[in-house]
């Protein structure tokens, strides 16, 4: 191509307006969430906001890996559990909170390297089965590990003010959302979506698929681990059957799939829908929320393959 043609081409903005809008909206919503206690919001509302942020952070972590690459993970519950145990064990050993959170994130990343390095070279269901196996293995292992408290679990020995976990989780959810948007917009995001579209064609243009998938899985695991760690600061007590419950993996997966997979705003919609649905069902069928979530997921997968958010956006565009 000639230099002249390159010079005539319009420069590409570094941050497109829709990404910029999402970043501003995320910061504004996070600020509102953090300000809620000062605005007099009740403890109940704060708890709903907290859990929405927790599921958003977890869903966004899943979205970064599975939404962008198409490799479905069932390990995000376990990665979150590793973060939770990591922070509690470190803080109980008198490590400062910052260093303990780093341990939590680092442990989750290490776990993702083990899962990813062994399964991401293979295509198809290998990764999904590896993550499912890992999820169950972690539950069985933590029940047996004495330093993890065995089946009785662990208690965080320090008493922390409630706002730390509340603000921490909102900030983490915001960072995860903005992080997703920036990754999606970046060359890395484009290349990963190319892998999702056609891995052979991606290889033919020089994309090292295994390496990129592993990088994304590590980023995703870091966020899941930190989400679990901050949640451990919120609950202050850990039980293996809860911290490593497959339910958490299902929620991490369902939130983006319902709201809008591979989009930055979809998991936010999915998290709000899930928390709202769960609260509504508390009154009529307290233990049925996962069943309802499963049914909702089924309906979305069958009739709205991109999720509710993108489907609604398409309908609105058509009606104009």
């Amino acid at each position: 191509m000639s230099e002249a043609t390159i010079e005539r081409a319009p420069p590409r903005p570094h941050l497109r307006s829709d990404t910029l809008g999402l970043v501003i909206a995320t910061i504004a919503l996070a600020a509102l969430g953090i300000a809620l206690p000062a605005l007099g919001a009740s403890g109940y509302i704060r708890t709903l906001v907290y859990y929405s942020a927790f599921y958003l952070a977890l869903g966004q972590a899943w979205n970064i890996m599975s939404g962008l690459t198409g490799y479905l993970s069932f390990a995000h519950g376990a990665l979150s559990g590793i973060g939770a145990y990591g922070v509690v064990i470190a803080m109980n050993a008198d490590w400062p909170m910052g260093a303990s959170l780093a341990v939590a994130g680092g442990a989750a990343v290490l776990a993702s390297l083990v899962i990813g390095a062994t399964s991401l070279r293979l295509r198809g269901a290998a990764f999904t089965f590896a993550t499912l196996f890992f999820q169950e293995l972690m539950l069985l292992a933590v029940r047996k590990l004495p330093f993890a408290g065995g089946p009785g679990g662990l208690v965080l020995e320090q008493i922390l003010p409630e706002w730390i976990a509340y603000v921490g989780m909102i900030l983490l959810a915001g960072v995860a959302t903005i992080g997703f948007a920036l990754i999606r917009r970046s060359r890395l995001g484009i290349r990963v979506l190319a892998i999702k579209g056609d891995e052979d064609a991606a290889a033919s243009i020089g994309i090292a698929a295994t390496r990129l998938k592993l990088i994304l899985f590590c980023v995703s695991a870091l966020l899941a681990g930190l989400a679990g760690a901050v949640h451990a600061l919120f609950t202050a007590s850990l039980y293996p059957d809860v911290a490593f419950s497959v339910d958490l993996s299902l929620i991490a997966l369902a939130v983006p799939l319902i709201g809008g997979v591979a989009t930055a705003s979809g998991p936010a919609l999915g998290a709000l829908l899930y928390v709202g649905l769960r609260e509504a069902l508390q009154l009529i069928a307290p233990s049925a929320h996962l069943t309802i979530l499963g049914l909702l997921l089924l309906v979305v997968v069958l009739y709205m393959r991109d999720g509710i958010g993108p489907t609604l956006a398409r309908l609105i565009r058509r009606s104009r």
Partner: protein
Amino acid sequence: MTAILEARRVAKRFGGVVAVRGVDLTVRQGELLGLFGPNGAGKTTMFNLIAGAFLPDAGQVLLHGRDITREPAWRRARLGIARSFQIVRPFRALTVLENLLAAIPAHGGANDAASALALLRRVGLEARARDAAGDLTLGMLKRLEVARALAVGPRLLLLDEPLAGLAGQEAADLLRTVQALKRRMAIVMVEHNVRLALPVCDRAVVMDAGAVLAEGTPEQIRRDPAVIRAYLGSEAA
């Protein structure tokens, strides 16, 4: 002319079927090499062995004298071998521009986009840059695939049946684009449409049953009795 690519006694077997039997092939700088033969001749396997989609059971593949026999496809692309596919394989969820941005080696945001747009202009797709690749027609997708391969910055371009499914004018346009490219790189084109493709080649190789049947200029290939009898028939005679 300098050899860009050399395949030495390359062989590939799938179970009990020998697809390629010890083939030697040389591609020189600035030439357009046609690879012809009927279905099952082994030309697509040979093509995939050069691109790195398959690894050979025996033999060597050299790029500028460097042994790339065991290199995976993505590393060969980074070394300068780009390819298109017989059945177009665009990244349908990405825009036309993003299809190229995925392929361009990263240097810096605005310059990469400018390079991608310049490539799209060259294949006549600049106006569709922001559209989803899945919305393009087959002819446009073929051109997008050529542009995507060029975005890699190849020294060797492999085209797998680029004319398949194209109507007369679209096929002629694509061949003109291909011919214009060979000033800067070597091109290997696997093609079924011998009548259209052979005249634009500098050299041609005809394969049969996994081996090279004939090799030479288009004129030599046209006159080769074995080729005429077995593959080209009266069409090229």
